[in-house]
């Protein structure tokens, strides 16, 4: 199929960017969206032009690197997938596709479609972990009984790959689905209890510091999240913060 692409081009974080039109031809419907971008870049390189910079790593939907806001949706029109898993069969011959970087004050553009998501790393550093001794005398994890229900819910929360689609999608650029998932995966397990109070307080404080917006419960994040992280995790984070506040 033949497509028109409208792509955000921006030289670096300091230069102003703009949308630029490109044409690609003979795109197979079996290609992934990133493979289509590879075709475009090969074309640009052959013509002596600067290729479009975009993030990617695993190309199998687990690393969370690939981003892109495609036709007004994070990771494009398909559900439960990242951009590397989005197939060109979701589009039609002759389509115009608008491709923009994930947009949020806390995700500044580095170049073209590449954004800096280190604000997520700093939130994780603020408390998204448990402190365990790893010097060789670690306790066997199976020695601690955990109900199947709690284990399943914690696992669901832990599948968040930190891609940032929730922030990109949210009309308020809120990071609450991400932070809710990261708080929940520990809040549901006995190992997470020891540091629970400080964890939620510090992670929420860091989230606010990074300049993310406030949640309006539109639910857009849950729909666009490639891992189906549920809004329930935000409600749980809110409860955890209230609990932590009363504990002091």
């Amino acid at each position, binding site marked *: 199929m033949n497509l028109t692409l409208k792509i955000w081009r921006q030289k670096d974080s300091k230069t102003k960017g703009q949308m630029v039109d490109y044409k690609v031809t003979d795109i197979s419907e079996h290609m992934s969206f990133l493979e289509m971008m590879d075709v475009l870049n090969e074309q640009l390189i052959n013509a002596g032009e600067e290729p479009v910079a975009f993030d990617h790593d695993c190309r199998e939907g687990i690393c969370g690197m690939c981003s892109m806001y495609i036709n007004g949706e994070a990771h494009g029109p398909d559900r439960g997938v990242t951009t590397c898993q989005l197939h060109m069969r979701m589009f039609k011959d002759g389509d115009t596709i*608008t491709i923009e970087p994930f*947009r*949020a004050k806390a995700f500044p553009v580095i170049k073209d479609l590449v954004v800096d998501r280190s604000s997520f790393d700093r939130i994780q550093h603020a408390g998204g972990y448990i402190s365990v001794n790893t010097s060789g005398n670690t306790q066997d994890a199976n020695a601690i009984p955990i109900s199947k229900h709690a284990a399943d819910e914690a696992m669901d929360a832990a599948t968040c790959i930190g891609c940032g689609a929730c922030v990109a999608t949210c009309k*308020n650029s809120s990071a609450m689905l991400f932070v809710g998932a990261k708080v929940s995966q520990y809040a549901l397990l006995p190992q997470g209890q020891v540091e629970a109070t400080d964890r939620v307080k510090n992670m929420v404080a860091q989230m606010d510091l990074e300049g993310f*917006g*406030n949640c309006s419960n539109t639910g857009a994040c849950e729909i666009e999240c490639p891992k189906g992280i549920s809004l329930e995790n935000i409600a749980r984070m809110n409860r955890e913060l209230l609990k932590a506040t009363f504990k002091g």
Partner: protein
Amino acid sequence: MSRFFTSSIGRKYAMALSALFLMFFLLQHFAINILSVFSPNAFNEASHFMGTFWAVQYLLQPVLLFGVIYHFVMGFILEIKNRNARVVKYAKNNGAANSSWMSRNMIFSGLAILAFLVLHFIDFWIPEINTKYIQGDMSGLLADGEGYRYYEELTHKFVNPLRVGAYIVAFVFLSLHLMHGFSSAFQSSGVSSMRKEKLQKFGKAYAIIIPLGFILIALFHHFNH
């Protein structure tokens, strides 16, 4: 504690609390207004009680005033903060793909409600305060002393079709506001999804029935006059 209320989540709790109080107030207001359709007498008695009972006047009324003002001021603050969290807007954004119009436009439905509240204050609240606390007439009686004035005043307001029209538009926006707001307030307060599913049905019913009820009461008095 102070850090809690200035955090993004603390603000949401406070927003939800003020909203829950407003929804409770709305229900009570509706219960009294509906009396005017069935029994002018009962409406007069209830209005006089609410208008003169000290706990309502000096406890609930200030809480309500604070609740309304807090709610819309915080609504504006959140809106500004949220807009600032995305400096460069998307060239193409398909919000309808993942969220309801109501949830994305709470500030607009809220502004419509605020415009109505200003009218409502001029229509009812300021004359009430003037009669009772400035002129000092706590009797609740008509000027000629023949019975209570509340029913007369109410029906008189609904003669003008323009006012009835504005009233209807405002309540349609209130309905849209609550379509999202009702369940949103419970999500903000951290109610778990299992309980929320049941609440959601109740919330949709509340968001339709209560505003529709207010509209029907206005129409009833308009055509009954």
